[in-house]
């Protein structure tokens, strides 16, 4: 019961205890007085005020005369000593009656008390009384453990407490080892600290959670054994010993209280003393895993020095494997770790357990993670980027290793890693990287022969120092001259040998790579033929993100090539979601507060490092400008129905700017584009082109001049179109020359554009060939208001019937499928002009398989004339929803486990 009482709190026990203490004080007098003198010296430096017991704080504050203060000081010291000694006494009593439960509780209390003292002042030395108590406890514990019979007769709880005590004490004593030793040396007989316990890992496992207080840094028992091991003379160590030690280390992996640093250190020693090459390989592999264990959590990256070490170790292993072809690494192999075994003969075929590809992937992942964290504007980031070469070198070597044994699927996995390092690099970047590799190789070559042995030895010792030792690039690392050829080789290998996901990723990377190198058609065809658009919805989030990024790049590529509709098509989907940052993994939005921290963490882990970012401003400019070029004509012609609108986001923007009473000079991208739009809607191409070309983002494009030229010509053509359709009705005839002059275009262009408008009936007029003029037939003058209204009424009626039919068709299946086909000729003729995707729509489906809804809809485009058109827009909507889903899906996945509430919010958002 007493123990219970004590456990309640060490701060309030003084009053109640004093009586019992005073009784027992005499018995402990010698020890306590002894310790008092000691502790006094240590506590003299104590700050008086902070040393004051909590009970007395009020006193010392209220009356401040020096005498009183003195008294208080003394009393505080007394109290402390009293408390300590009381607890020690209690422990002693409990020890005598072999009550380990009581000992345990009191021991906790003792530690707490000590901690309190320590917190109160800067205690330079451990109180002697405490050390003495420790020694006593240790002895008693040893005795109790030695006495097996007594142990057996103990009650269950008592035995358990004994074991717990054993663990606790051991951990605790680690910190006071020196003092205990001094104490023993000084007074008591030299009781060598022998290993009293048998191998009882399982026990320690169960009880390890006992320590909970401030003494986290307690070491487990294994450590203690290893310390001597690392200090052993390498000559005394046998093959079997090394095996055994490493096995112990491996068993301790991941346990609470295992010091990962120590583990790595010991492992390094093991590597050094390894007897055979195969053993060295095995030890190094174990060392690598020990290094990787040092990453504290999933979301933080491995410290860079350790990463470097791990990397160097992997290179060591690989070099060793190259040197000794008889050594093979096998993931599933069970290494024999028994102590008695002898090392195999040098040269005999040996297998070691280890996962090279795992190491490589881990290395790569950690590198990636570190880049996510490091501030991209610092030198560190650049330095870190340079490590990519090492990863590539490792990848190449691992790949070579596996290629030798013809493990194609593994090689394909590595190839994907390699591809993922390469795909986003433009040719210039690749060249720069290659040049850097050459330089590094030379450096490494010159440094290596001189410093190799020492450097390695030094590296093994100075684990503690947080110094970055850059990994030397292996000399035989080669980079292909042509990045395209390299990509092609890797990707083709993957297509042949890998699973579906790897293939899809490789394909996306390939498309991305082709897009940034302006190979639009190949990139697009690859994308369409691979059916990735359908498949991606069922893929993991990382792949979806990659898909989004690829789409963005294709869009940019199309824009650079002057294929505005394609560019717009690609990008508007991304922008429709309104969460462009998120779906490109280039930033986290804080808008959704319903995310749990875990979700946020997950999202953070998916972020792209800075050097892989796609410039969002450029992306937005391209998206808006494409929309501008496509939409302004509909903006101007109010009477073109809403069905022709393609870009919702652009319209929203227009509406927003319409509401502004005052429009300042353009500042951001949107302002610029909107100003351009207004100029364009007046047919003022000069102003429009001027505003657009002022955008700063064009500097990001290597082909700035060409792009701007292309843009200007597009703007001219669009302005001409807009001018003729808007202001045409006000003319009775327009001369071609005049248009040519106004828009600074050739006669042929005018001819083409106007003819197209005539054919599509966007303007009511025709050419008067002998005079080269356009004769306008003013339709507005001879249609009365009644007629106009009648026309509108009719089209409304048509829409009504159509929607009725559709509604019925939904219920009954396809109602009027046939007539849809029959309605072919009805369409307006402007499809060719505006939509080049029809053929492509077919191409989505090269093999005549069943098609997804989207492609079908695309394919029907243009067949259907007016009706098809509207339906097609539906398709667009649908698709856009899909684009949204790309992300929504990802959040959906995250949410899946979260239950109905989350689902409800999700569906709300979807709607």
């Amino acid at each position, binding site marked *: 019961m007493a123990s219970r009482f004590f456990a309640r709190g060490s701060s309030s026990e003084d009053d109640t205890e004093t009586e019992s203490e005073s009784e027992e004080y005499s018995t402990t007098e010698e020890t306590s007085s002894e310790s008092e003198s000691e502790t006094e010296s240590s506590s003299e430096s104590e700050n008086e005020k902070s040393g004051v017991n909590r009970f007395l704080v009020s006193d010392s504050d209220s009356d401040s005369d020096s005498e009183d203060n003195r008294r208080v000081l003394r009393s505080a010291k007394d109290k402390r000593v009293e408390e300590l000694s009381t607890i020690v006494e209690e422990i002693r009593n409990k020890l005598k009656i072999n009550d380990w439960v009581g000992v345990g509780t009191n021991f906790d209390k003792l530690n707490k008390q000590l901690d309190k003292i320590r917190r109160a002042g800067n205690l330079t030395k451990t109180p002697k009384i405490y050390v003495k108590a420790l020694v006593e406890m240790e002895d008693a514990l040893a005795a109790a453990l030695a006495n097996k019979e007594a142990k057996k007769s103990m009650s269950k709880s008592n035995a358990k407490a004994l074991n717990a005590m054993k663990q606790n004490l051991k951990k605790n004593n680690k910190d006071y080892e020196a003092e205990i030793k001094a104490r023993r040396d000084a007074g008591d007989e030299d009781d060598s600290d022998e290993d009293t316990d048998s191998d009882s890992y399982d026990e320690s496992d169960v009880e390890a959670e006992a320590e909970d207080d401030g003494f986290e840094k307690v070491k487990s028992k294994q450590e203690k054994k290893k310390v001597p091991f690392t200090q052993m003379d390498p000559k005394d160590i046998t093959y079997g010993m090394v095996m055994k030690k490493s096995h112990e280390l491996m068993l301790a992996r991941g346990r609470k209280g295992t010091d990962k640093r120590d583990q790595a250190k010991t492992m390094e020693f093991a590597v050094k003393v390894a007897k055979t090459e195969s053993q060295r390989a095995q030890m190094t592999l174990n060392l690598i895993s020990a290094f990787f264990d040092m990453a504290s959590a999933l979301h933080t990256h491995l410290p860079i020095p350790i990463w470097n070490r791990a990397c160097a170790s992997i290179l060591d292993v690989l070099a060793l494997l190259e040197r000794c072809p008889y050594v093979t690494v096998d993931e599933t192999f069970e290494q024999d770790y028994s102590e008695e075994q002898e090392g195999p003969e040098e040269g005999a075929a040996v297998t070691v357990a280890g996962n090279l590809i795992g190491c490589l992937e881990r290395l790569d992942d950690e590198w990636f993670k570190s880049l996510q964290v490091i501030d991209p504007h610092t030198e560190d980031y650049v330095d870190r980027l340079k490590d990519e070469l090492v990863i590539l070198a490792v990848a190449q070597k691992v790949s070579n290793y596996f290629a030798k044994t013809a493990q194609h699927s593994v090689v394909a996995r590595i190839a994907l890693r390699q591809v993922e390092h390469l795909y986003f690099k433009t040719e210039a970047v690749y060249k720069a990287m290659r040049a850097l590799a050459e330089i590094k190789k030379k450096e490494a070559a010159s440094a290596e022969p001189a410093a190799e042995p020492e450097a390695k030895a030094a590296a093994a010792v100075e684990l503690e120092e947080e110094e970055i030792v850059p990994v030397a690039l292996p000399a035989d690392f080669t980079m292909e001259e042509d990045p395209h050829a390299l990509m092609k080789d890797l990707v083709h290998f993957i297509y042949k040998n890998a699973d579906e996901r790897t293939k899809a990723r490789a394909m996306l990377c390939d498309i991305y790579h082709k897009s940034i190198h302006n190979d639009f058609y190949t990139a697009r065809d690859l994308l369409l033929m691979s059916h990735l658009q359908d498949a991606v919805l069922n893929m993991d989030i990382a792949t979806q993100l990659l898909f989004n990024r690829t789409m963005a790049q294709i869009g940019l590529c199309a824009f650079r090539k002057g294929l505005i509709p394609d560019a717009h098509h690609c990008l508007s989907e991304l922008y429709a979601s309104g969460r462009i940052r998120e779906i490109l993994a280039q930033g986290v939005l804080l808008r959704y507060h319903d995310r749990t921290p875990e979700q946020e963490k997950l999202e953070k882990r998916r972020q792209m490092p800075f050097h892989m970012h796609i410039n969002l401003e450029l992306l937005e400019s391209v998206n808006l400008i494409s929309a501008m070029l496509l939409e302004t004509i509909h903006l101007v012609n109010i009477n073109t129905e809403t069905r022709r609108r393609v870009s919702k986001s652009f319209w929203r923007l227009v509406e927003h700017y319409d509401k502004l009473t005052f429009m300042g000079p353009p500042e951001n991208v949107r302002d610029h584009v909107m100003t351009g739009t207004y100029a364009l809607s007046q047919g003022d191409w000069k102003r429009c082109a001027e505003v657009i070309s002022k955008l700063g983002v064009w500097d990001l494009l290597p082909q700035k001049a060409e792009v701007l030229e292309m843009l200007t010509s597009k703007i001219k053509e669009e302005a001409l179109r807009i001018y003729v359709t808007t202001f045409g009705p006000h003319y009775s005839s327009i001369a071609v020359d005049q248009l040519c002059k106004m828009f600074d275009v050739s006669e042929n262009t005018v001819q083409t554009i106007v003819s197209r408008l005539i054919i599509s009936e966007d303007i009511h007029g025709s050419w*008067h060939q002998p005079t080269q003029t356009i004769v306008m*037939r003013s339709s507005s003058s001879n*249609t009365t208001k009644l007629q106009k209204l009648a026309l509108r009424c009719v089209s409304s009626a048509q829409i009504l*019937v159509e929607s009725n039919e559709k509604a019925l068709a939904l219920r009954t299946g396809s109602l009027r499928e046939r007539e849809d086909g029959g309605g072919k000729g009805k369409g307006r003729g402007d*499809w060719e002009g505006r939509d080049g995707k029809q053929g492509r729509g*077919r191409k989505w489906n090269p*093999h005549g398989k069943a098609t997804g809804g989207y492609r079908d809809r695309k394919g029907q485009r243009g067949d259907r004339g007016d009706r098809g058109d509207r339906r097609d827009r539906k398709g667009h909507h649908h698709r856009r929803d899909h684009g949204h889903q790309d992300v929504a899906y990802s959040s959906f996945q995250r949410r899946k486990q979260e239950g109905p509430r989350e689902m409800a919010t999700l569906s709300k958002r979807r709607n």
Partner: protein
Amino acid sequence: MTGGSGDGAEQWDITSKIAGNLDRHLVFPLLEFLQTRGIYPEEDIMNSKIELLKHTNMVDFAMDIYRQINGTEDVPNEMTERRKVVIGNLRELQATAAPIVDFLLDENKVKDLRNDKAYNIKMLQDQYNISQDDIEVLFKFAKFQFECGNYSACADFLVQYRGLCTKLETSFSALWGKFASEILLQNWNEALEDLNKLQEYIDSKSFTSALAQLQQRIWLIHWSLFVFFNHENGMNFLVDMLVQDRYINAIQTGAPHMLRYLAAAIIINKKRRNLLKELIKLVKSERYVYSDPVTEFIVCLFVDYDFEGAQKKLKECETVLANDYFLTACVDDFVENARLFIFETYCRIHETIDMKMLANKLNMDQESAEKWIANLIRNARLNAKIDSQQGTVVMGSQQPGVYEQIVEKTKSLTARTYHLSNAVIGSGKINA
């Protein structure tokens, strides 16, 4: 095959692209044709002929050509060696195939065959001791005959073989063989039949990979050119076949040069004008992989409305077509129809056209142009008049009045609503 004269004709020559998808024997007529056109040096063609024949069994023919080129009587040793080998093989095959061949050559015996495969096989086995293996030998023998240039024998054998064989795969190959033989024998009707069979077969058959199916389709398209451009109604069939989605896909992915034939066929075939839009889109979307004067003509005329350009392209088309083995016969048709297209489109966007200019553009003198136009106006039912005093063609207004528009739009509404209500009531009844 480089160099040679020709006025840019070899630039547009797609023989080599086509040849890649043809059987060796089928390439031969193409080469013969090229020889007569003389766009490539004679020697080149001869050499490629020999190259072609090397892998066939037509050794004697190869020797002849060799002699022709080199003007000597001697032939290289390898050819004589090859000859020996071929003859040896022939003997051997003849011997092994003897039982079945003898059987087939005997008309009385052949009469015993029935329409039942299983029965036939059993009957052959029982009565004539002809086993399955012998039947397979027949296939080999037919193939050998084909290689030797003995197409009619090959075709005969293959017909019999297909009647007897049980394996789908070889039966399919046999069909291809028969198709090739019929083409080379110029039996267009039979060839067309085989073509349809093949088409059906390819579309229905579940191929192991989509790629294989695609390849088969591409081959079929190429081979079918022989039939379509020689059969009297071939153009129609060609258009029918190629506008199917799966063949359009095949063209887009594997053989964009086929667009030339599709385009030409559609232009020539007046009835197929409704497919023009489809074609335009196709041509436009494939422009980055393939373009030649024929497709460019379409782009000029229907995309850019560049009549000058179209005129120029049309001229180029003439040479291209004349130098194309398949299209050479229909140059005139093509030019005539293309002209018509130009004129029609021209009329659609013009109100007044100067006749002189038009005559110029159409390469005619004014009087004949006037006649031609008058005819056109009558035939195409264009709303146009000739103002002969001013020498212009005046187009009537095409814009329908508001009244017509409304009538046009409301015309179908009643019927559709009627159908709709019927459907609703009908389904209601079923539910009730």
